[in-house]
């Protein structure tokens, strides 16, 4: 199994989701804050305008136009350019005082909408925005007081900038935290995943190195270790049991064998019984070999680098004369230098079983072909013959123990040969296939290549 990529990690997604929610909440809070601030500023401005115009109106009430003109001129002089507008006109529209010459364009003149009840936003010289109120003083004197929005706008812009920066920082922090947390989690999870992979491949003795930490990962690792210990113990117990069975049954068989030798007068019967004993032991051995190979499946210990072609050649040479004597023609096509990690004895047994079967089931005149080549990134061993092939009804469970075709009942054998072949192939991580042929039986076993 491949290690989980960071981008697809569940912990990253979870952290990012939580961080996103927090970020959203923070942004919402800041938006509310922003809105409150901008409203407060607006209210404050309106109040200032109101009190300005109120005080001017009061001055007019008390001391009439000359005093008002003086006060407005005074105020206009004190005010920095572009900060505030003051304008007092007479009934005819002539400017009496102020820092602008005429009623601003676009602002409806007096009787229009501008009143102190509804401040109006308008643009005046150089595009500066003003917020203004107007009032017609008794006697028909329109008075305009406006304050530039610049300050408010600047404050709000600054606030927006701060909010944007904060949001950026929060996003960055969320990404960093998410990455960090998931990397941390992934590392621990990956270690457990890698361990599980090794176990699945057959290395029951695999364990995580180092101490277990006192957190939930440590607890998970401890559980996995406990589980593996139990599996390993069970496995060892099973192996001990098979060995014990083999031992306990072989000892009485051995006594029978020794006593057979004492029998006199029926040498043929004794010979037959010897043969039966040998066959019984062969079944034992095959069953033990099958379970042994399956138990060690995927385990590297016990496998050594070897030239598969050499083993194939050796076993072929052992069987070739037998095939020839049985009237079969036998060919061996082996590519050179195909190396695998293997157990020579088991491999020899695998090839021997397959050749044995081929020779057993073929009729004189048939051909047996043994080939080894590299194909599709694997070293593929193929044994094919032109014999009677395999009946379809047993094809699917051909590799199960004790599977035999009905028509072969009178032939010697116990139906363990192919079960052992499959177990040995599995021990080597090899894939078995039964390609269909027009005539005869073919089996391919694809071994993993030994690199280098």
């Amino acid at each position, binding site marked *: 199994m491949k290690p989980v990529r960071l981008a697809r990690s569940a912990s990253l997604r979870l952290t990012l989701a939580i961080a996103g929610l927090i970020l959203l909440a923070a942004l919402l809070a800041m938006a509310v804050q922003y809105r409150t601030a901008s409203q407060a500023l607006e209210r404050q401005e309106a109040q200032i305008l109101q009190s300005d115009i109120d005080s001017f109106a009061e001055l007019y009430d008390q001391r009439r136009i000359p005093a008002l003109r003086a006060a407005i001129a005074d105020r206009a002089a004190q005010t920095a350019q572009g900060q505030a507008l003051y304008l007092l006109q007479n009934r005819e529209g002539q400017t009496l005082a102020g820092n602008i010459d005429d009623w601003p364009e676009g602002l409806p003149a007096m009787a229009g909408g501008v009143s102190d009840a509804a401040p109006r936003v308008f643009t005046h010289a150089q595009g500066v925005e003003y917020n203004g109120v107007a009032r017609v003083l008794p006697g028909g004197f329109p008075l305009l007081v406006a304050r530039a929005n610049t300050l408010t706008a600047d404050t709000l812009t600054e606030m927006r900038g701060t909010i944007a920066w904060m949001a950026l920082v929060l996003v960055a922090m969320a990404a960093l935290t998410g990455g960090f947390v998931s990397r941390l989690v992934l590392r621990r999870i990956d270690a457990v995943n890698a361990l599980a992979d090794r176990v699945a491949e057959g290395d029951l003795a695999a364990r995580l190195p180092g101490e277990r930490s006192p957190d939930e990962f440590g607890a998970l690792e401890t559980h996995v270790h406990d589980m593996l210990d139990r599996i390993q113990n069970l496995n060892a117990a099973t192996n001990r049991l098979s060995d014990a069975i*083999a031992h306990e049954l*072989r*000892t009485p068989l*051995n006594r029978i064998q020794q006593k057979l*030798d004492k029998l006199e007068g029926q040498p043929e019967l004794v010979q037959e019984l010897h043969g039966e004993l040998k066959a019984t032991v062969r079944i*034992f*051995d095959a069953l033990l070999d099958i379970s042994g190979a399956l138990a060690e499946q995927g385990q590297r210990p016990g496998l050594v680098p070897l030239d598969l072609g050499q083993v194939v050649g050796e076993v072929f040479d*052992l069987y070739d004369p037998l095939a020839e004597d049985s009237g079969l023609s036998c060919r061996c096509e082996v590519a050179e230098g195909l190396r695998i990690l293997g157990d020579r*004895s088991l491999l020899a*047994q695998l090839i021997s079983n397959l050749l044995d079967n081929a020779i057993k089931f073929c009729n004189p005149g048939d051909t047996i072909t043994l080939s080894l080549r590299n194909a599709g990134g694997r070293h593929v061993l193929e044994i094919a013959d032109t014999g009677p092939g395999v009946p379809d009804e047993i094809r699917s469970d051909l590799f199960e123990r004790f599977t035999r075709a009905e028509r072969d009942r009178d032939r010697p054998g116990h139906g363990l040969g192919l079960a052992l072949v499959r177990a040995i192939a599995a021990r080597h991580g090899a894939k078995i296939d039964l390609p269909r042929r027009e005539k005869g039986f073919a089996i391919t076993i694809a071994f993993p290549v030994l690199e280098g």
Partner: protein
Amino acid sequence: MTLEADTLEHPEEAQATDKPRRILIVEDDKAAARAMAEAVEDLGCEPIVMRSFDDGVTAAGLADFAVVIFDRMLPGGDGVDAIARIRAGGSTALILVVSALGRAANKIEGLEKGADDYLAKPFDPEELRARLRALLRRAEMTVLDNDLIAFGELEIRMKARTVHVKNDHVPVSPKEFELITYFAQNAGQVVTRMQLLEHVWNLHFDPQTNVVDVHVGRLRRKLETAAGRAVIHTARGEGYVFDPTRGDA
């Protein structure tokens, strides 16, 4: 140096001149121990039987044994683990492990851990005798790098890897040459099919068919044609006897 078959010392004859060689049997099963003791006596040697791992290891260090037969799964330990301790005790005895752990993998493990031979239970007494004979012979024949091994008119040249009968070259395949070499080393004695499979083909499992017979048959025919009489004889039961000096079939 030329080794003449006529001067070969047979273990059976050894006891007549010398005191019998001793073979230590470490086996907890009485029936098996008795069968082993009988096989040892058949070979003219003196059996000494021990019933536990520790007694076996101790005994191996106390006397000069030609061969030690060690069971596995004994009270007190695994006979395969005894090999190193017996060797460490200074014994030069050849060690034959006889065990119910009889799979090829068990045999290879035993041989890799230093056993000189490994026999699976249940064993045929004839097979045990053949194994013991081969070991006894190995113990006494230290030099085998003679270039020429001659049995009367049959000559085997080790370096050239050729076989001659009456000075005529007998063409043999490489495997057949290894076969005849192994036979020659055990001339006059029963050699079993399993022994041939193990020593000539280095295979430790029992094939379903007697593939070895075909190879021996071919070699036998070649030698018989050249010599004009049987050279390899079929032994009762399990094996063959290579004896160029014996005339019958």
